[in-house]
């Protein structure tokens, strides 16, 4: 039961994160928001690794495409803050769910990023439609 509470709490904190980052947009440019969001997290994580793990930090030995995560991080925070400011956190998160479901289905279907291949089946379609209806109700309701 406690783990269910943890998961709901994870969602609550993520909701706070999206909303607060959106509010920073009233003061900073999109890239300014990205800077503060990532810089503060980097400092805390750096301290955690230094204090808890007590091992030197090295980023060697990863595939080259892993180094694109920073660009993706900037793009994600910038777009989510921009959209939250204009359409609100609820609509932004609901629409993002649709994007996540579609991209996950495509990645599974083609087996990209070494994911095990799982073909899209038509019987999954009603589930996607139900989510789509839910998103439309949230955005236009």
């Amino acid at each position, binding site marked *: 039961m406690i783990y269910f509470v*943890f*998961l709901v709490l994870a969602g609550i904190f993520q909701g706070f994160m999206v909303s607060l980052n959106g509010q920073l947009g009233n*003061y900073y440019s999109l890239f300014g928001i990205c800077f503060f969001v990532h810089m*503060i997290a980097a400092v805390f994580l750096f301290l955690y690794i230094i204090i808890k793990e007590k091992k030197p930090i090295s980023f060697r030995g990863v595939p080259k495409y892993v*180094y694109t*995560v920073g660009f993706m*991080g900037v793009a994600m925070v910038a777009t989510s803050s921009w959209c939250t400011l204009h359409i609100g956190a609820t609509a932004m998160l609901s629409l993002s*769910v649709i*994007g996540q479901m579609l991209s996950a289905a495509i990645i599974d279907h083609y087996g990209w990023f070494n994911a095990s291949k799982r073909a899209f089946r038509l019987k999954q379609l009603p589930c996607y439609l139900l989510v789509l209806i839910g998103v439309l109700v949230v955005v236009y309701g």
Partner: protein
Amino acid sequence: MIFYIVAIANGFLNTVNKMVNVKAGQCLGTPRGALINYIEATVISFCLVYIVGKGSEFRFEYIKGVPLLFYLGSICGLIAMIFLIIGTKNTGAMTSTVLMLFGQLGTAIALDYVFFGSFRPVQILGIFLILVGIYWKEKVRQKDLRQAILGRNEEETK
């Protein structure tokens, strides 16, 4: 309309980013995998702020003038990550997806009310439909997975 398209694109990027982060975590360990993301993004966004001519945002007086609460978004993100890792390890992908979305969307409704003063009760119905849709999809996926494993086992025994 552009905001809706960009929000969907954000979801696409989110999944790809997750896959790449998982790979980084496998190679470097979860904390270092996340740190590479944060450090790179900090440097890139710092450069971009100056490129677009908004360097004045980094003046100390200006930074001090912004309410402290709004800087706490990234700390919320870190706390969420810890809860998510512990929760997912002990429950499973389906439960974690549905419960996390429930918390996320519920909070978004509450904060939209606080910051924008907007609340439409029909949004709760929308969120309920989204959660049922996700739960259903995960159920179908798990059933398929189970059948695939059973089929493989049967082939091996033959």
